[in-house]
C-alpha cells in the first residue's frame, strides 16, 4: 500500500513539474485558487481499484506514461482542422493541446454575449466569474480536477447575459496534436437568468499516439436559464481522457445534455449536476467502444431542493474486448419533496469478450418522490435479426441496423443536424466494422 503511495506521489510530482513556470495572474484569487489546488495534489493520491469510485476502472497504465505539459505549440492552419467544423456553429473557440489558438477561432458579434478565452475575458469579467470559476468543481477531493485547477491560466469562457438567447451554437474545439503531452482544457459557462445557449464541447485528435487530456468544465445556470450541452469525445485511439464536469442549476433552469464517447484508450467522465427548485435536467449518454477501450461514465444528479425533475438515459455499445462502466447516482436530499427522477442504463454487448459494469444507484431521503431506475444488459434480439432477414437483409446488415438504431436513440437528441449526421455516420461505420 505504501509502495504504491510513493509511486503515485512521484508520478504526481512529475505532472506538476511545469506548474511553477505558469505566469502569475493579475487576479489574486486565481493565484490563491491555483496554490490551493497544488496543495491538494500534494495530499491526494492517484486512485486505484481499491477506491470505490474507481473499482472498475484501472488507470495504472496512465501512471506508467511519461506525460509532460505542452512545451512548444504547433501552429495549425484552418485547412488542417476544417473537417472538424460544425456548419451551424459559426462561433468557435479552438484550443490546440490546451493552448488557445486565436487565428483558428471566431468570436461572436454583438448582443453582449461573451465567448472568449479566459485571458482575454479577465479584465471585463473578473468579478462576474469569481463565484464560479473553480468553485463548482470539487477539486479538493479529486486529484484530476485539482491538477487541472493547478494549471488553470486560460480557459474557454462563455457568459450569456440576462434574457439573451444565443441562436447560434458555440463550438469549443480541443485538438490534440502532440504525443506524450498532457493538456488541461477548461471551460466556464455562465448562463445568467432567462438566457439560453447551446454549447458543443468537442475533443478531437490529429495524431494517433498516446497523450492525456485532463479536462474540467463548469456550468452555472441562473434562474430560468436554458443550456444545451453537447459533449463529443472522439480522442485518438491511444489517448487517455479524464474529465470532470460540474453543473449547477438555479431555480426553474433547464439543462439538456448529450454526451457521446467514441475515442480514447481509457476515458472517464464525471458529471455532477445539482438541482434547485423546479429545475429540470435531461442527461443522456452514449459510449460506443471496441478493441481494448475502456469508457467510464460516473454521474451524480443531486436533487438538493424540491420540485426538480431529472431524466437520464445512458447507453453503451461494447464490442471487441472493450469494457464499459456506468455509475449513475441519484441523490434526493431531505426535504427535496416532489422530486421526479428517472434513470435508465441500457447496454448492448456485441461480442463474447465485451464487458459491462453498471451501477444505477439511488439515495433517497425524502418520502414524497417519484424515483425509478432500470438497467438492462443484453445482446441483439435474435427474433429482431430474423425479422429483418426475412425482409431480405443479410445477417450483417440486420445486426448493423439494429445496433445503429440502439445508439441512434441518444444521438437523435442532439439538436444540431450536421453534428447529428456526422455522429450517426460514425456509429454506422463503427458498427459495420464490429460485426
Amino acid at each position, binding site marked *: 500500500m505504501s509502495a504504491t503511495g510513493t509511486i503515485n506521489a512521484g508520478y504526481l510530482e512529475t505532472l506538476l513539474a511545469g506548474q511553477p513556470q505558469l505566469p502569475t495572474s493579475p487576479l489574486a484569487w486565481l493565484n490563491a485558487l491555483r496554490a490551493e489546488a497544488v496543495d491538494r495534489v500534494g495530499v491526494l493520491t492517484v486512485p486505484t481499484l481499491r477506491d470505490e469510485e474507481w473499482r*472498475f476502472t484501472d488507470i495504472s497504465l496512465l501512471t506508467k506514461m511519461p506525460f509532460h505539459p505542452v512545451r512548444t505549440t504547433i501552429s495549425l492552419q484552418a485547412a488542417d482542422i476544417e473537417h472538424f467544423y460544425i456548419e451551424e456553429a459559426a462561433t468557435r473557440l479552438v484550443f490546440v493541446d490546451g493552448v488557445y489558438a486565436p487565428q483558428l477561432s471566431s468570436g461572436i458579434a454583438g448582443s453582449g454575449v461573451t465567448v472568449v478565452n479566459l485571458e482575454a475575458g479577465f479584465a471585463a469579467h473578473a468579478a462576474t466569474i469569481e463565484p464560479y470559476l473553480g468553485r463548482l468543481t470539487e477539486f479538493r477531493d479529486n486529484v484530476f480536477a485539482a491538477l487541472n485547477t493547478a494549471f488553470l491560466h486560460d480557459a474557454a469562457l462563455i457568459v450569456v447575459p440576462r434574457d439573451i438567447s444565443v441562436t447560434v451554437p458555440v463550438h469549443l474545439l480541443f485538438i490534440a496534436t502532440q504525443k506524450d503531452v498532457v493538456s488541461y482544457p477548461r471551460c466556464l459557462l455562465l448562463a445568467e437568468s432567462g438566457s439560453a445557449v447551446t454549447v458543443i464541447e468537442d475533443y478531437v485528435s490529429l495524431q494517433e499516439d498516446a497523450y492525456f487530456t485532463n479536462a474540467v468544465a463548469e456550468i452555472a445556470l441562473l434562474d430560468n436559464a436554458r443550456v444545451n450541452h453537447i459533449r463529443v469525445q472522439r480522442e485518438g485511439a491511444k489517448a487517455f481522457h479524464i474529465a470532470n464536469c460540474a453543473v449547477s442549476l438555479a431555480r426553474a433552469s433547464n439543462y439538456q445534455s448529450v454526451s457521446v464517447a467514441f475515442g480514447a484508450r481509457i476515458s472517464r467522465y464525471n458529471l455532477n449536476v445539482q438541482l434547485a427548485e423546479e429545475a429540470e435536467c435531461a442527461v443522456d449518454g452514449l459510449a460506443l467502444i471496441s478493441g481494448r477501450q475502456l469508457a467510464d461514465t460516473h454521474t451524480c444528479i443531486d436533487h438538493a431542493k424540491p420540485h426538480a425533475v431529472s431524466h437520464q438515459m445512458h447507453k453503451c455499445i461494447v464490442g471487441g474486448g472493450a469494457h464499459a462502466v456506468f455509475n449513475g447516482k441519484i441523490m434526493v436530499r431531505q426535504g427535496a419533496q416532489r422530486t421526479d427522477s428517472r434513470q435508465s442504463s441500457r447496454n448492448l*454487448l456485441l461480442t463474447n469478450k465485451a*464487458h459491462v459494469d*453498471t*451501477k444505477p*444507484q*439511488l439515495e*433517497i431521503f425524502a418520502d414524497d418522490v417519484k424515483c425509478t431506475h*432500470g438497467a*438492462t444488459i443484453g445482446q441483439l434480439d435474435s427474433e429482431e435479426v430474423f425479422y429483418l432477414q426475412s425482409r431480405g437483409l443479410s445477417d450483417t446488415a440486420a445486426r448493423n441496423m439494429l445496433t445503429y438504431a440502439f445508439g441512434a436513440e441518444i444521438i437523435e437528441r442532439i439538436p444540431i443536424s450536421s453534428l447529428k449526421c456526422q455522429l450517426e455516420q460514425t456509429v454506422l461505420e463503427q458498427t459495420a466494422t464490429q460485426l
Partner: protein
Amino acid sequence: MSATLQNLVNQPYKHGFVTSIESDVAPKGLNADTIRMISTKKKEPEWLLEFRLKSYEAWLKMEEPIWPNVHYPKIDFQAISYYSAPKQKPKLKSMDEVDPELLRTFEKLGVPLHERMALAGVAVDVIFDSVSVATTYKDKLAEVGIIFCSMSEAVLDHPELVQKYLGTVIPPSDNFYAALNSAVFTDGSFCYIPKGVKCPMDLSTYFRINTEESGQFERTLIVAEEGASVSYLEGCTAPAFSSNQLHAAVVELVALDNADIKYSTVQNWYAGDEKGVGGIYNFVTKRGLAKGVNSRISWTQVETGSAITWKYPSCVLLGDNSVGEFYSVAVTNHYQQADTGTKMIHVGKNTRSTIVSKGISAGHSNNSYRGLVKVAPGATGARNYSQCDSMLVGQNSGAHTFPYIQVANNSSQIEHEASTSKIGEDQLFYFAQRGIDAEAAVSMIINGFCKDVFQQLPMEFAVEATALLSFKLEGSVG
C-alpha cells in the same frame, strides 16, 4: 393504542436470560487460548480446532469493513466473552406466569398456542401438544434418513459430513465477520438430506428453540444431496431478545445435482428503543452453493428487527442450469439501519436468478438494498431479473439502492428495475371513502407492496409476517 403496541414491541425482555454460572463463562477477550478452550469444552476433534485457529489467524489480518451504509460506534472485540455454556432459559410452570404484555403481542401476531408457550419459555414438558408434535417430527425425519440436529451434536455424531462441507461455501477468510464466526462459533443447526429424499415437512429451528440459546456466533450448514429437497425456516415472528449485542452468524447451503433448498428467515431481534438506543447488531454471512446441475437455492427473508442489519444471502450458481432466488422484505423504523441485499454469481451455463427486494423505511431509519449480479465469461445464457422497490413512510427516513451489475459475456440477459413510492394521502383517502380506517388501510397497502415476497413464505409464516409488518409500522403513518 398504537403507542402501547410500540412500547410493547420495543421493550426489553424483563425475564432476563443471564443466569449463567460464572465458571462456565470464558473471560472477556479473544486469543488462541480462548479458541482452544471453546474447542476443548465442546470436546471437538482436532481438525475443527485447526479450522478455528486458521480462521482466527485470518481474522487477525483483516480489517473491519466500513463500506456498508450503516453507522455505529466501533466494536471492541476484546470486550466480548466468546464462550458461555449453553444456558437453560428459566422454566415457567404454565402460561399464567408469562408476562401478560408478551402474551398480548403473541395474540396480535396470531402465533399458534403451543408456539407461544415455547417462545415464552414455558418448560417443554408441561406443553403436552408441543412434545407430541416435536417427537412425531423427529421420528418421521429419522425414518427417511434426514439428519437434523444442533451443530455441536453434528460435530460429534457426524464428523465426516461436517468436515466435508464446513467452510466450503464460505471459506474462513471470506470476510471479517465470517472469519470471526469460523474461529469462535458455538452452535447452530446442521441439516443433511440424503440422496433422493424429499423432506416430508418444513424444518424449523423452532423445534430446537427451547433447549438452549444458540449464542451470538451461530453456524448453520445445510446439505442437500442429489435430488433431495428441503424447506428450512429460521427465526420467528415473535420479538426475540438477546443479552448479546453483536450477532455474527454464518449460514452455508450446499445443493448437489437436482437438489432444491429453500431457506426462509423471519428476523425480529430487539431493534433498540425509539431513540435508537440499544438493539442488536446483526452481521450475517449467508451463502448457498448451487453446486450440481439443475440445483436450486431460494432465499426468502423478512427482516424487521435489529438496530443494524447487514446481510447479503447469496447464491453461487456453479452447476449448469442452476437457479438462484432471493425474495426479501426489509422494514426499518425509528433509528434502525438495514443494509441488505443479495449476490448472484453466475458461473455455470444457462443459470437463472431472480431478485425481488422490498424495502420499507419509516421514522428516522435508513434502508439500503445492495446487490451484485455477476456473470462470469463462461456463464453463457445466464438470465437475471431484479426488482427492488422502496417505500418511504414519513419524511425523515432514507431509502438507498446500490445494485452492482457486472457482465462479461454477450449471451446473457440482465434486467434491473427499481422504484420508490410512499403511502399517499390520496391512497389513504380512497380507503377512508370505503370505510376502512387508516390503520387497516396501511396494513393493506403494505401487504400489497410485499405480496411478491410473502407468497414465497410457508403459509402460516406468511400470515404472521403480514401481521408483524403492520404491527412494526403502526403509528408511523397518519
